[in-house]
């Protein structure tokens, strides 16, 4: 072994380090460039009109997006979290569990357009109803379900066995252990799962096209839940921001459709980024409170 041999090793080392560093920073640069472009374009065309909650504005679509994601989070949490708890805590190793897990994995890789058509068939055609937010939320929750199931399962599995033993040792039943020890301890990770699921919901378009509908007609002075123009009525057509962008870029007849689409994208971007930041902060606070620092 001579000096040049070591020099060559060191050179290769620094080349590889640079390569990895480039890979890591590339993602950051890409994100900044992307967000910057969308925000720049969007803000250029953003007018006061667009921010209003009227027929001309994007406020209604903004509200629909939030409301729809909220509903689908509830549906998927009701289905997904118990499923994850079952797989992690109750199920014994066996054929049935293998099938359940395979079903969850397959569900998570379904293309959203296929799920959208399924939602259309089941929630619209079979129920003989019009486009509505409930159908949209249920369809999106099918997409969120596998994510929440596996996040919940993983979160519980990574908890130390000592939590379970100590709880049983104090005379707790299985349900008391799950409810009072395991779920609270897994909460920050389940929360992260909910954020990821929400992110998916905010960005979803294909699954909503045939379910939530491409129009919205809300009157902010109408608070009769059964009325089709009541904002809180989930059984009304409810175009979201993503659907609005799609509609503007494909079939809008207005002259400034592209500008409107750019503004709409910017609003969607602000929504997603601020939601993610708030949720991260909340989960950080909870983590800190439980971690004793």
């Amino acid at each position, binding site marked *: 072994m001579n000096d040049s041999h070591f020099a060559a090793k060191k050179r290769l080392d620094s080349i590889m380090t640079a390569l990895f560093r480039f890979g890591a920073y590339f993602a950051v640069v890409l994100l900044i460039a992307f967000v910057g472009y969308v925000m720049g374009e969007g803000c250029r065309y953003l007018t006061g009109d667009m921010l209003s909650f009227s027929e001309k504005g994007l406020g209604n679509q903004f509200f629909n997006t939030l409301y729809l994601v909220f509903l689908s989070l509830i549906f998927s949490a009701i289905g997904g979290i118990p499923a994850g708890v079952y797989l992690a805590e109750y199920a014994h190793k066996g054929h049935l569990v293998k099938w359940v897990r395979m079903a969850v994995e397959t569900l998570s890789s379904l293309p959203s357009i296929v799920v959208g058509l399924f939602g259309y068939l089941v929630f619209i055609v079979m129920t003989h109803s019009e486009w509505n937010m409930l159908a949209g939320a249920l369809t999106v929750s099918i997409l969120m379900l596998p994510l929440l199931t596996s996040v919940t399962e993983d979160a519980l599995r990574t908890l*130390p066995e*000592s*939590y*379970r*033993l*100590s*709880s*049983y*040792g*104090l*005379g*707790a*039943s299985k349900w*008391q252990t799950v409810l*009072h*020890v395991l779920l*609270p*301890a897994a909460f920050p990770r389940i929360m992260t799962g909910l954020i990821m699921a929400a992110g998916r919901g905010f960005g979803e378009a294909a699954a909503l096209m045939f379910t939530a509908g491409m129009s919205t007609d809300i009157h902010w002075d109408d608070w009769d839940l059964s009325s089709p123009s009541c904002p809180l009525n989930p059984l009304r057509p409810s175009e979201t921001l993503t659907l609005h962008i799609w509609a503007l870029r494909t079939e809008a007849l207005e002259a400034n459709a592209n500008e409107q689409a750019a503004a709409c994208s910017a609003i969607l971007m602000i929504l997603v980024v601020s939601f993610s930041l708030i949720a991260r902060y909340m989960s950080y606070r909870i983590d800190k*409170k*439980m*971690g*004793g*620092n």
Partner: protein
Amino acid sequence: MALTTTTYGYTKEHSGEARPVSADAAAADSGSLTFEIKHMDLFYGDHHALKDVSMDVRTHEITALIGPSGCGKSTFLKSLNRMNDLVENCRITGDIRFEGKDIFREVDLLALRTRVGMVFQQPTPFPKSIFENVAYGPRLQGISNKGQLSEIVEQSLRQAACWDEMKDRLNQSALGLSGGQQQRLCIARTLAARPSVILMDEPTSALDPISTQKIEDLALELKEKYTIIIVTHNMQQAKRISDKTAFFLLGELIEFDDTVKMFTDPSNPKTEEYITGRFG
């Protein structure tokens, strides 16, 4: 054994109660038997882990279980509150009686674990506040009154000698405590569930000497009100704190006697070899 018969009568009168008998009530029958184990065998699948173990555990005594690693002493301990039920393929035959009752047939599993508390080798606080850790047992038993819980928490922390250092940080996470503090908190948590027996599975093996001494002092104090069974690797510890010592080897109970007798004049040559440090 006249005393034993009285114990049976006492226990039977109070049987079927969901609420555990308080430590004070249990103190009334000092000198009686808390556990009677007869011809107990334990199998993990095909592995015969405990062989024909028979032993009586007296109330308000500290019984130490010693022996080399893998001798079955922890397995034996975990059978007493049926924690081995959680182990797949674990099968127990023979007779284990807690206060005269068969723990597999006559005592409800959850009631047994309430009456027979356990402290583990590693401190195992829940990721909750100090208060909530201690209040966990009482809450499981349906106590939700804040004043009553505060009282139990204070009492238990005092008993476990941690009230003074923890009273100002009850709402902080238990995970922020040192290892020794965490272990004493776990003892307080066990006491809060109002057990009459405390099983300790090498409670000091993860602690420094000062924390170890605190736990040992605590055990000696708690013996007034509780029956304690402690597994230990440390023979000096067994000698310092226990009244009775049981020596396990390869799944067999080799010798069980007064600690003083065992450490000065063991009857079995294997016991002598072990306590004089010739193996283990």
